[in-house]
């Protein structure tokens, strides 16, 4: 008996052309999202491969041009570290278009190089990427709304409801069954798209996969809860549609956009500009000062390098030059930390806010899992700093002793790839979304109970 009712409800649902339109829109945009997301990441992978090739070529041509002067060689030669995308980055491109994924630096002052951006089209950045996470976060809720806004109101407006109420006192059960059919359809489409994503993007079925899947399911459940809540108010179809779209616009656009404006106002970033100035002055002013001013702090920074003879009497030496460059970085240290603190404050602020807004929560959670968020980029920057420091340590002695270039192993330096250290978790994201969903379902149940009494 029960099974046949669901069969009937499914038939009713699929007989409606708008149901098919909704499903097809999700599938088409989903496939488009997969395609564009993959293209975007494949392009980055190709660039990294090319960079590996160019790293070798450029080092050889630099040795050819400047091989006689080791200090000059390292003035020109660049070393590259790439933040290679993992498979999930194609699922959620996140901030990977804005933040550079390939940083090439010389041994000179790092603070003057590490913030260099990629060359990209600002209009594309403004309009945003088309990837599968966009479909899940923005379009799925809309289809959920379209499928469920008139569940109760349509019955009432067509007069079926009064007939039904007269025949059974469990009329709300019918609404619940209709609702479950829609839940089943939406989740099937979502899982189907995720399954296609596994095959097309070669996603590993691992912890990240289950985290993201759970996050998406929770997020979609939240939207069902919102729709069900509005249905439970028992208003007209037009009211429901307007209210639900208004909620979507508020949660997906207006509130995040307003909060963002508030965020930039609360945490402005003048430190970044100050940092550039500190680095530039810290290095350049040393040219006009006694060598002591540079060498004393330099040897305090690297006591181990004192063993190499410093040519005090020479007007210019690479030893002095590289030490001056180091001073730029050292003097930019306070402003660099100020930037880091400001960014951390921004992150805390966003995390707190995200607790109340599932859209922000899901977006941040997915980007975090996919390694395409700001934090991953900041970790990548730290890795560049570490790599740069290693290179300095490795080549400083050769430069300071003015050795022949052939005696170093600079030719062996290849492009290095950065791999994130820790696996992020989504527990907080899941928790906040589920709390909101439970609250909504509770209120909805209360609403229906009250109506049934009348």
């Amino acid at each position, binding site marked *: 008996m029960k099974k046949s009712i669901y069969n009937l409800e499914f038939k009713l649902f699929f007989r409606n052309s708008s149901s098919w339109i909704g499903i097809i829109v999700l599938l088409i945009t989903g496939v488009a999202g997969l395609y564009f997301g993959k293209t975007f990441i494949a392009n980055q992978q190709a660039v990294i491969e090319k960079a590996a090739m160019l790293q070798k070529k450029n080092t050889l041509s630099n040795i050819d*041009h400047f091989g006689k002067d080791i200090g000059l060689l390292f003035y020109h030669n660049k070393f590259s570290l790439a933040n290679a995308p993992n498979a999930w980055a194609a699922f959620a491109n996140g901030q990977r278009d804005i933040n550079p994924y390939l940083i090439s630096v010389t041994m000179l002052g790092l603070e003057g190089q590490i913030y260099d951006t990629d060359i990209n089209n600002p209009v594309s950045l403004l309009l945003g990427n088309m990837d599968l996470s966009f479909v899940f976060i923005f*379009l799925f809720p809309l289809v959920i709304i379209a499928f469920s806004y008139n569940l109760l109101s349509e019955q009432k407006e067509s007069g079926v409801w009064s007939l039904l109420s007269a025949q059974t006192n469990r009329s709300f059960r019918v609404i619940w069954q209709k609702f479950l059919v829609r839940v089943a359809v939406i989740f099937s489409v979502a899982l189907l798209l995720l399954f296609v994503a596994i095959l097309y993007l070669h996603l590993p079925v691992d912890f990240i996969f289950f985290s993201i899947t759970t996050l998406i399911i929770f997020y979609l459940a939240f939207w069902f809860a919102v729709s069900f809540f509005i249905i439970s108010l028992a208003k007209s*179809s037009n009211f429901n549609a307007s209210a639900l779209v208004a909620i979507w616009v508020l949660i997906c656009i207006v509130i995040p956009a307003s909060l963002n404006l508030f965020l930039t106002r609360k945490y402005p970033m*003048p430190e970044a500009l100050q940092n550039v100035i500190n680095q530039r002055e810290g290095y350049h002013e040393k040219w006009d000062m006694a060598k002591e001013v540079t060498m004393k702090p330099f040897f305090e920074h690297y006591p181990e390098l004192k063993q190499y003879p410093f040519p005090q009497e020479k007007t210019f030496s690479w030893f002095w030059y590289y030490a001056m460059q180091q001073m730029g970085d050292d003097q930019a240290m306070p402003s660099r930390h100020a930037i880091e603190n400001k960014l951390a404050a921004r992150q805390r602020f966003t995390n707190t806010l995200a607790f109340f807004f599932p859209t922000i929560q899901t977006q941040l959670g997915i980007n975090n899992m996919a390694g395409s968020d700001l934090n991953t980029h900041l970790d990548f920057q730290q890795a560049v700093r570490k790599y740069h420091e290693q290179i300095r340590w490795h080549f400083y002695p050769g430069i300071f002793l003015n050795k022949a270039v052939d005696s170093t192993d600079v030719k062996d330096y290849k492009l290095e790839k950065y791999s994130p250290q820790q696996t992020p978790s989504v527990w907080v994201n899941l928790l906040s979304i589920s709390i909101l969903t439970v609250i909504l379902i509770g209120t909805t149940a209360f609403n229906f109970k009250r109506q049934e009494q009348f």
Partner: protein
Amino acid sequence: MPNRVSTIAKQTFKTALNNRATLALTLLLGLSLGLATYVGWQNFKTQNNQRLHYKELVRAQWLAKPDKHPHRMAHYGYLAFREKHELSFFDFGIESFAGVSIFLEAHKQNTVNFSEAGFSNGMLRFGEISVAMVLQLLVPLLIFFLGYNSISAERESGTLKILLCQNVSWKQLLWGKTLGIIGVCLSIFIPLMLLTILLWASLSHWQISGDASLRLMILVFSYAIYFFIVSAVTVLVSAFARSSKSALTTLLACWIFFMVIMPRITQAVGVKIYPSPSKIAFADAIATDIHKQGDSHNPDDPHYAAIKDSLLKTYGVTDVKKLPFNYGGYIMAEGEKITSKIYSNHQKELNKIFEKQNSITKVAGFINPYLSLKHISMAITASDFNTFVDFQNQTEVYRYQLAQKMNKLQIDKISNIAPGEEEKPLAISKANWAEQPDFNYHFGKLSLVITNELLALSALACWLLATVMLLQYTTRWIKTI
């Protein structure tokens, strides 16, 4: 006859505002607009003041540099900051996605760094609430809510027949309804524009230029036309729809498709069709070209060997050290000339590719008035792609002049005989530094902006024409019952 139109318009206007929900929505929108304007204006002031502060600091530091070798100054270089146009508080455009500061030094073209987007943890991707965003995205939604049942409700309640029997024509009805809805929009839009004008005037220190006032006028007209288009479409959909419900769902689906999905897809398609080179490929192509033309870093380069030979011949000397001017400076000036020309050509090519990428979205303005208005609005408020490119170009011109100025000083004032390894380095007086002027960005003239945006403007004009035609001539196909 126009009397009837205005009666219908007034009636629509009144009913709309009598509805408590509509009134609440309208007030809410008005309030958020006021807030967006205020916060946008505040942000503008904070950010612009920061940039101006650092601009002054950079200038002061440049002038304070002691006597030194001009080539040291060429490497010390200059920092330029991208200033905002006063009207950019109205529309943020690409502001947050474009860099703010660029380091200008000899031999090397750097990127414009530190965009707001680079500091964002992803929140920015939801958009930024600005006056323009509210007007472009949310006001149409309000219009849809106001007008989806403008005709269909009359039909459903049976009043439509009565109206048409009383000698009201379809045309009058459609125009009246459209104007009534626009009236509601204008009741928000007009005070808002007055506020905008006030804030803008205060940002320009109450000195209003002709160029800026014209910009503002075009802006007001474009938005007014946009609202008309949206209102007319709403009334038409309501007239043709089977029921109020189907009118509402059609309009909402259109809103989502045209404003949320389409911009991303058109841009993604543009990027796919016209791929732009990566930074490393771009740099490599430039390096290859420089190598072909003459690489001053290569000791065996034939181009520079030829220059050396001809100089030695002209001055009748056997060694470059005997030349009457600084040979190193001369070679650097030549190198700068070659490299910057090659760089500029590549940069031009790159910008052309970006323009082609954007062209898909621009052409899509003919099917999506939102996109054409967005382009016009960004261009008028100088927060668009072209302004950013123009900034890059002006900084490159400045960078080149600075480098060549320092090379000239070296050629003229630095001895051609290098001092010994332990001798004092050669230097010139710090008085020379003031000769290099400060970097000041100049915004493009409005006429240029309009030429650039002809496509978007004509798309909007086409839409205006199309909707007027539809209101005038489609009435015969509308069903009364």
